[in-house]
């Protein structure tokens, strides 16, 4: 025997000693199990046998009320109302067919409907409550109560249901709740909250994005019931926790004004407080009533909503992406000034067109603007000036400033399905289409056409950053979240996404140009100037059919091919820090279709602020 084997065998002796101890432990553990079994089955057996005869301990779950949604001034936008729900416990309702027959007769509910509900819940344990009909009316309630003793296992429960008092107003922002679907049931959640079949969950808008705050924590009771399923005694109660209340930054009055301003159009309006990025109003037209989504939307109504070419379900302020058109000249101007391609003295002569590589690019004014500088080019929205500067800049240098201003990516507002827009670069085109950038394409990009896409919210954010001196705030729509008891769990604080990478001088020049758009007699939006408050802004006319030669004003263009009208504007007085962006789909000219809406909004804001101060 070698030394090694000796160690091993001594080791094994040691293990054999240990095994004895191990066996003892195992036997002790199993003896405990047997003693416990004996206790449960023999000592307490009789008692448990009786309790099992008709199992009288049940669980009743109690839904927690969902948190409310308010505007910034505590106006209720979403709240709960009681709903009377008819339910059945199959185990108690025996014979089930007879009970249901009687119920149908007394309460005047169609028998087929009831049977369908019962059949749909065949897999549910017999002692669990099954919903037969939600939201029954008073007559049905009375009938069920009167015949209570003839209807074993039938009960009327009160549950809470969502309602939206503002109906169509702010529908896109508020969103709605609906019953949780199988995909949502199986979704992995950070906080591991478990939804159950029949629970309500936010589907879109704030209802969805703030779901974890709005939903409460379900409570319940362990109750003792008698043979007919009636509660005799409550054994244990777990209090549910109501959801948190969410306050939006939206001001209901401004919102209503915004909605009325765009009510005749297909489009969107966003109003920002440029001192902190709070969204004061976000309107998208056409809109839709939220309440039918709770009480049950008919197939017809749904089909109507989704087949409407004006896309009422879409929140155009954040989901629709449009070419920014001439509003994008703000970006091109910043880039040109900052990169030294142009300064305030740079002059260009506009003959009404621009030749580049045997292609002619037209200015919107085919007679030409004559000699222009950066100020008059912005004021009159001269395309040729920006063709020149854009050509010198190249696409990538323009994109740098657009991205720094927050374009080309989601703003990060607390709403889902936000569009990010698109800011093209040469690298993007190479990657996406596999071909190199052509210099001619820069010319379209410089005036906001081509591949450029932005949302109205993004353009409002850019406008706000010009207005506030260069700070790009993340737009926010949540003012405050507090518990049902009023303890604040979240409060909006201005969040800087970044700063415009431009010198104060460049900013000053851009602002002066935007001021002239509205306040210089030759400006494209001179019509909307106000005496009481100075408006600065930029018009835009986004072509959807790119055929610049075909701009004969006398030729009628089919409505759905007409250009989209843009206007972005702000009040230059920091006492009234408001920035507005508007898109009117197929509104044709920014100066006619969009600019007056912004003017009216700023005037309304100014007057109500002044009114409040007095």
């Amino acid at each position: 025997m070698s030394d090694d084997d000796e160690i091993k065998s001594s080791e094994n002796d040691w293990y054999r000693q240990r095994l004895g101890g191990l066996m003892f432990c195992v036997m002790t553990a199993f003896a405990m199990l047997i003693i416990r079994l004996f206790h449960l089955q023999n000592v307490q057996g009789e008692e448990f046998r009786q309790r099992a005869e008709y199992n009288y301990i049940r669980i009743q779950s109690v839904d927690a009320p969902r948190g409310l949604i308010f505007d910034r001034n505590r106006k209720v936008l979403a709240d709960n109302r009681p709903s009377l729900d008819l339910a059945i416990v199959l185990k108690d309702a025996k014979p089930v067919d007879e009970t249901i027959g009687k119920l149908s007769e007394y309460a005047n509910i169609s028998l087929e409907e009831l049977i369908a509900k019962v059949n749909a819940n065949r897999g549910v344990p017999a002692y669990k409550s099954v919903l037969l009909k939600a939201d029954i009316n008073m007559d049905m309630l009375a009938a069920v109560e009167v015949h209570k003793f003839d209807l074993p296992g039938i009960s009327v429960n009160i549950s809470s249901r969502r309602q939206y008092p503002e109906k169509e107003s702010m529908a896109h922002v508020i969103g709605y709740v609906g019953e949780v679907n199988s995909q949502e049931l199986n979704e992995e959640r950070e906080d591991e909250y478990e939804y159950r079949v029949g629970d309500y969950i936010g589907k879109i808008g704030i209802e969805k994005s703030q779901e974890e705050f709005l939903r409460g924590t379900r409570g319940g009771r362990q109750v003792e019931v008698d043979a007919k399923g009636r509660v005799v005694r409550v054994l244990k109660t777990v209090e549910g926790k109501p959801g948190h209340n969410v306050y939006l930054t939206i001001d209901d009055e401004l919102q209503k004004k915004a909605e009325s301003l765009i009510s005749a159009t297909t489009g969107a309006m966003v109003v920002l407080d440029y001192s902190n990025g709070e969204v004061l109003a976000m309107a998208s037209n056409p809109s839709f009533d939220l309440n039918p989504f709770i009480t049950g939307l008919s197939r017809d109504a749904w089909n109507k909503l989704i087949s409407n070419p004006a896309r009422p379900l879409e929140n155009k302020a954040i989901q629709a992406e449009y070419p920014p058109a001439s509003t994008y000249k703000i970006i091109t101007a910043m880039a040109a000034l900052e990169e030294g391609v142009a300064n305030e003295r740079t002059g260009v002569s506009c003959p009404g067109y621009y030749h580049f590589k045997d292609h002619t690019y037209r200015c919107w004014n085919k007679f030409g603007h004559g000699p222009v500088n950066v100020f008059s080019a912005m004021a009159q929205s001269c395309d040729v000036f920006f063709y020149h500067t854009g050509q010198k800049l190249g696409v990538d240098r323009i994109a740098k400033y657009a991205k720094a201003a927050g374009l080309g990516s989601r703003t990060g507002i607390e709403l889902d399905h936000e569009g990010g827009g698109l800011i093209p670069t040469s690298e993007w085109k190479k990657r996406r289409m596999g071909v190199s950038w052509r210099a001619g394409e820069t010319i379209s990009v410089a005036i906001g056409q081509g591949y450029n896409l932005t949302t109205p919210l993004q353009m409002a954010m850019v406008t706000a950053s010009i207005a506030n001196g260069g700070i790009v705030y993340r737009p926010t729509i949540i003012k405050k979240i507090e518990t049902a008891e009023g303890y604040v769990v979240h409060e909006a604080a201005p969040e800087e996404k970044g700063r415009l990478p431009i010198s104060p001088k460049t900013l000053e020049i851009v602002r002066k140009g935007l001021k002239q758009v509205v306040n210089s007699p030759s400006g494209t939006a001179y019509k909307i100037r106000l005496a009481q408050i100075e408006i600065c802004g930029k018009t835009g006319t986004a072509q959807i059919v790119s055929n610049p030669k075909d701009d004969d004003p006398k030729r009628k263009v089919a409505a759905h091919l007409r250009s989209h009208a843009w206007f972005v504007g702000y009040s230059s007085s920091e006492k009234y820090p408001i920035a507005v962006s508007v898109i009117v789909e197929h509104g044709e000219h920014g100066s006619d279709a969009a600019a007056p809406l912004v003017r009216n909004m700023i005037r309304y804001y100014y007057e109500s602020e002044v009114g409040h101060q007095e």
Partner: protein
Amino acid sequence: MFDRRLAYHFDWGLLILTIFLGCAGLITLHSAVSAGSGDAQKSLYIKQWIWFGAGIIVMVASFAADYKNLKRWAKPIYGFCVGLLVCVMLFGRYAGGSKRWLTFGPVSLQPSELMKIAVVIILAKYYSDNAKPEGMTLKDLIIPFILTLIPFGLIVKQPDLGTAMTVFLIAASVTLFVKIRWRTFLGLTGTALVLMAPVWLFALKEYQRQRILTFLDPDRDPLGAGYHIIQSKIAIGSGMMYGKGWMQGSQNALSFLPEHHTDFIFSVLAEEWGFVGSASLVVLFLILIIYGLNIAYGCKEPFGTILSVGVTGIIFWQSFINMGMVMGLMPVVGVPLPFISYGGSSVMSMMCCIGILMNVSMRRFMFE
């Protein structure tokens, strides 16, 4: 490949014990799923037969080749199982609040079941290579600690506290079985106790704390775990001395029992077969475990001994925790009852354990 002497030494006793347990399981499962209203439930009974069929193949595979080969294969097996757990984290199927399964077409695999065996094999290898007559020191325990911590962490993350705890308990039992210095043992226990407070206060989120508290005290959750335990106790107790008879359990029939075909299947058995039946099952498990330890006793080299102890430890902890839980003696955890609960991964891993025990048992008389 198969020595005739091996056939001669085949462990018939172990096979008979396994057959007894398997039959008890199938009979109880038949009753448990017949109560359910869905056809999907009833098909589980047929599926379990298939699992046992496949399990026999796994068992034969586990004893066919000399178990000493496992020592060489310990690292790849361990790595493979950890890989599977990582896959669960990345592509696992999310169901009922956790991610535990990998789905391959119609079959779902729960890698944490296999992981238990892999941990036992690799620890057996490590301890048999590194055991010292004077006992293991703290330094010697670092590697086993890491080897346990990796699967433990991955399983906690799923989250599956019950299985993670079982992995820990199995690893701890194997470690305590080999010689550790007293000072080291006391030092480790002390450190663990001291570390608990800061982890509890700072590392865990509120809902995680709640989950552990409920785990330890089901009464904190009278609508969930607490209610299940009450119903389970009613089921077991109402079985009384002789039970209500096969397929006669009312608790089971009315679906008062949660998970009655998996974690709470013992309650179904106890309700229908009474104290006579349920105590017999407990004794059957006890015999199996003593039998396993006896195989360890008979083995003449450390790897086989530690391996047998570890594998027996898996069966012990799973059966003890599961039965203790349904009787209200233990935290409510999702640990299946070996051979009885429905579940492919569980049946496979248990049959693999039996195969390994047979392997060690058959070859204890062999000398190279």
